[in-house]
C-alpha cells in the first residue's frame, strides 16, 4: 500500500469526456469522487472501480482507476471477487437505482452480510434514463412514465432502509446541490473499513421530475448534522431513513462505531488457522469420526 499526499483531483480524471446530458447530477458525483480520491491519496493504479449498466455506470471510464463496466446488476459480485483476490486494492462500486435495487437487488443483502471492504455509490435518479424514461424501483408511487401512463401503482424501494436493515456499517446520502457535503460523505465512506453505502440523489435532467432537480434539492435538503443526528444511533437512523421520498436528508445516517471484521479479514484469519498442522489434524479427525 503506497500512500502519497501529492495527488490532486486532476490525477483521477481520464481523457474520456463524459457523454451524460448537460446538467446531469452524475457530473457532480464524478467531481466529488475526484476530490475525495485526491484526499484519500491512493494512486489510481491501486484502485479498482466496478459498475453495472446504465448512465451512471459509465463513471469508471471517466476516472484513471482500473475500471470494469460490467454486467447489469452484477457490479457487487464482481467487486467482491476483485477484493477477495486483491485485498490490497481500494475497490469502489457504482451504478444506478435500477442496477442496484432492481436488476441487482438480490446481490445487495448478500454483499452487506459478508461485509467486504467496498464503497458502493448509487446514483439514484428514480427513473431508467438510459432507456428513455421507464419506471425504476425508486420511482415514486403515482409517477407517470412511458411504462406507467396512468401513474405507478407501486411503492418505491427505500435504498436507505434496504441497506440499513441488512446491517450495512455505513449508510449515507448526498446530493450534487451540496458538493462539499457530497465530497465529505464519499471520502468518509471510502475510509470506513467495511461495506459502505452512499445513496446520491442524482437527478435525471432529461426524464426526471421538475421538482426533483438540483435547484429544488437546494431549497429543501436538510443536513443530518444540522438536525443534531448522532450517526452512532442506528435506531434513530432507521426513523430518519424511513422518510426517504418525503425528506431529503444529507450526510451520514449510520456509521458503526465499532466496525466488525471484514470478510477479507475473516477469510485470512481462517486460512491462517487452517494452515497450522494441528488444525489439519482436527479436520482429519472430523472425517474419521464421521
Amino acid at each position, binding site marked *: 500500500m503506497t500512500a502519497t499526499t501529492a495527488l490532486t*483531483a*486532476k490525477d483521477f480524471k481520464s481523457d474520456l469526456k463524459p457523454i*451524460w446530458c*448537460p*446538467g*446531469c*447530477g452524475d*457530473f*457532480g458525483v*464524478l*467531481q466529488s469522487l475526484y476530490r475525495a480520491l485526491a484526499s484519500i491519496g491512493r494512486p489510481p493504479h491501486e484502485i479498482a472501480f466496478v459498475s453495472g449498466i446504465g448512465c451512471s455506470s459509465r463513471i469508471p471510464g471517466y476516472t484513471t482507476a482500473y475500471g470494469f463496466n460490467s454486467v447489469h446488476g452484477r457490479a457487487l459480485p464482481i467487486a467482491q471477487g476483485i477484493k477477495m483476490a486483491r485485498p490490497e486494492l481500494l475497490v469502489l462500486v457504482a451504478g444506478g437505482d435500477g442496477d442496484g435495487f432492481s436488476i441487482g437487488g438480490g446481490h445487495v443483502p448478500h454483499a452487506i452480510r459478508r461485509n467486504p471492504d467496498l464503497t458502493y455509490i448509487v446514483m439514484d435518479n428514480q427513473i431508467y434514463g438510459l432507456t428513455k424514461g421507464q419506471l425504476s424501483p425508486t420511482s415514486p408511487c403515482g409517477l407517470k412514465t412511458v411504462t406507467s401512463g396512468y401513474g405507478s401503482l407501486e411503492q418505491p424501494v427505500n435504498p436507505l432502509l434496504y441497506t440499513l436493515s441488512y446491517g450495512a456499517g455505513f449508510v449515507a446520502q448526498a446530493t*450534487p*446541490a451540496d*458538493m462539499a457535503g457530497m465530497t465529505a460523505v464519499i471520502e468518509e465512506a471510502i475510509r470506513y473499513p467495511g461495506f459502505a453505502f452512499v445513496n446520491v440523489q442524482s*437527478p435525471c*435532467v432529461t426524464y426526471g421530475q421538475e421538482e426533483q*432537480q*438540483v*435547484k429544488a434539492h*437546494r431549497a429543501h435538503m436538510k443536513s443530518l448534522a444540522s438536525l443534531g443526528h448522532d450517526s452512532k444511533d442506528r435506531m434513530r437512523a432507521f426513523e430518519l431513513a424511513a422518510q426517504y421520498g418525503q425528506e431529503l436528508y444529507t450526510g451520514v445516517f449510520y456509521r458503526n462505531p465499532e466496525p466488525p471484521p471484514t470478510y477479507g479479514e475473516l477469510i485470512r484469519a481462517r486460512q491462517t488457522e487452517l494452515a497450522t498442522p494441528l488444525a489439519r489434524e482436527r479436520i482429519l479427525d472430523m472425517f474419521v469420526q464421521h
Partner: protein
Amino acid sequence: MATLITSECINCGACEPECPNEAISAGADVYEIDQALCTECVGFHAKEACQSVCPVECCVPDPTRPEDEATLLARAVKLHPDRSFPPLAELPAELSRFRG
C-alpha cells in the same frame, strides 16, 4: 463584474454552449469564464445565460471585478462587430440584467 464560476460547479458543461460570447471552457478543476470575453450577457439576455441553465446556480457576478453596464455593452459591441446593439440609453430589460 464579469461572471465567475464558483467551486460549486459540477462540471456538467450545460453553460458552455449557452454563452453568446464563447467565453466558457473546461478548466483544470471546474469550468471557467474568460473575463475578457464576458459581458454578463448585456446586449443578449435579461439574465446571464450560464446562470439560467446552471443546475447548481454557481455562475455569479465576480465581486472582485465590478464592471458597469456601459463597460459591458461596449465589450459586447467590440466582440461582435457584425451585430447591432441598441445604444445604452435604449437598452431594453430583456437585453440587460441591470434593468430587470
